[in-house]
């Protein structure tokens, strides 16, 4: 059932400024497809021509980078929170 996606500022134009969006997909890949259906243009912002997560996009499930999990195959369960975050400079 329901998982939450936290939408980053650069993508809020697509979501009518919604910051938190409820989704049902059972993997990270599925929710990207789901968001694309609801907000056309969403998928191309996150994925490159080959369908891979773009190099400057970081996706986290409950604070863990999906590249340490199973990328787009990472399974989601009820209540999980997904964050989409642009890469940041050093400090």
């Amino acid at each position, binding site marked *: 059932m329901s998982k939450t996606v936290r939408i*980053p*500022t*650069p993508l809020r134009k697509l979501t009518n400024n919604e*910051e938190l969006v409820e989704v049902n997909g059972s993997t990270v890949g599925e929710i990207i497809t789901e968001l694309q259906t609801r907000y056309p243009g969403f998928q191309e912002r996150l994925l490159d021509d080959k369908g891979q997560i773009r190099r*400057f996009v970081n996706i986290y499930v409950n604070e863990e980078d999906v590249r340490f999990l199973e990328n787009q195959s990472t399974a989601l369960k009820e209540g999980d929170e997904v*964050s989409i975050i642009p890469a940041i400079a*050093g*400090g």
Partner: protein
Amino acid sequence: MEKNAGFMHALKCRECGREYPLTATHVCEYDFGPLEVAYDYDRIKRTLTRNNIASRPKSMWRYRELLPVAGDPTVGQQVGFTPLVKADRLAAKLGIRELWIKNDTVNYPTLSFKDRVVSVALSRARELGFDVVACASTGNLANSVAANAAAAGLKAYVFIPSDLEQGKVVNSLIYGARVVGIKGHYDEVNRLCAEIAGKFGWAFVNVNMRPYYAEGSKSMGYEIAEQLGWQVPQHTVVPMASGSLLTKIRKAYQELIRLGLVREQPHRIHGAQATGCSPISVAQKAGLDFFKPVKPDTIAKSLAIGTPADGFYALKVMQETNGSAEDVTDDEIREGIRLLAEHEGIFAETAGGVTVGVAKKLIASGRIPSDESAVLCITGHGLKTLDAVAGHVGRAAEIKPSLREFEALVATEDQSIVNT
């Protein structure tokens, strides 16, 4: 857009080239590519000459046409123009003909190269009307934001990993900044700050102000070239955390060549990491153009970024300039700190130990040929990371105030002194 934007033209996506107004924004809406400041180089070329630069005060702002502020800088006018030290004793030790230390351990006011980027970011933040500034930091940036904000009368929030060296925590608190320790490593601090920046209307120097902030690093490259008598060094060794400094030093050299201020000549740029957090050097050594994020575990906390935002571009610079990358263990980092201190009298923080340790490896393996010349970028002061070397530098001898005890001590240690 501002009517008068100085020599800036726009923000431009490094991936797709789309242009954006010169506001506090850092990411392309289409592909998340980083935005970078684009300049009007034709206009810059008409005003920026060697003579013009030489007539200006000795700070990073002598290159102001190439730095992204619209008017005069209002924060950190004294930052930069740190010494370029000819390091003959260290050169002999490492086995290279000529070696230079770009010594940002004495940068003003907080003893690291971060004062360069913060001076730009806060000056620009003021131009854009912000009165609260913030940053995600491994320590040095927090120190610099806190100090420079205090001097400018801006309110500062700094976010750091909660396990940071005490010196770096105190060094932010003292200026009255609100310091927030996050239970996690820098990449987690970063992620949280990206979310906070989206919610609070602050100038986050390395989030929404990043395009301006990052440009401040170029000043280190301009200074190296000017201090070498207007030439680009054959080799530059640069520590890598996010990889930003390395890419900006390359940009600085290229801009000077483009403006005719230095002659074009081959220059190799090498990247230095700690083995406990080496996503970029591992990728470079494997010949890859992408890196695998890691979870950092190193004493070089100022370089402990497991997901380096500019890693891709850093790899590209090393490939284009025929440079290389290397990484060193915690013990080699401590050795690097000692080598620099014992041969040149310069006490660097752990990142400096990384740079010296990597230079040693690159010279020994011939990747920096021994008959050539190299510049090492030393980015922060050793007093900030005392914890990392305390317990590894021996101990002070303790005696009674008695000449006899002192003579006995010396006799056990060094016959050459006793006999003179």
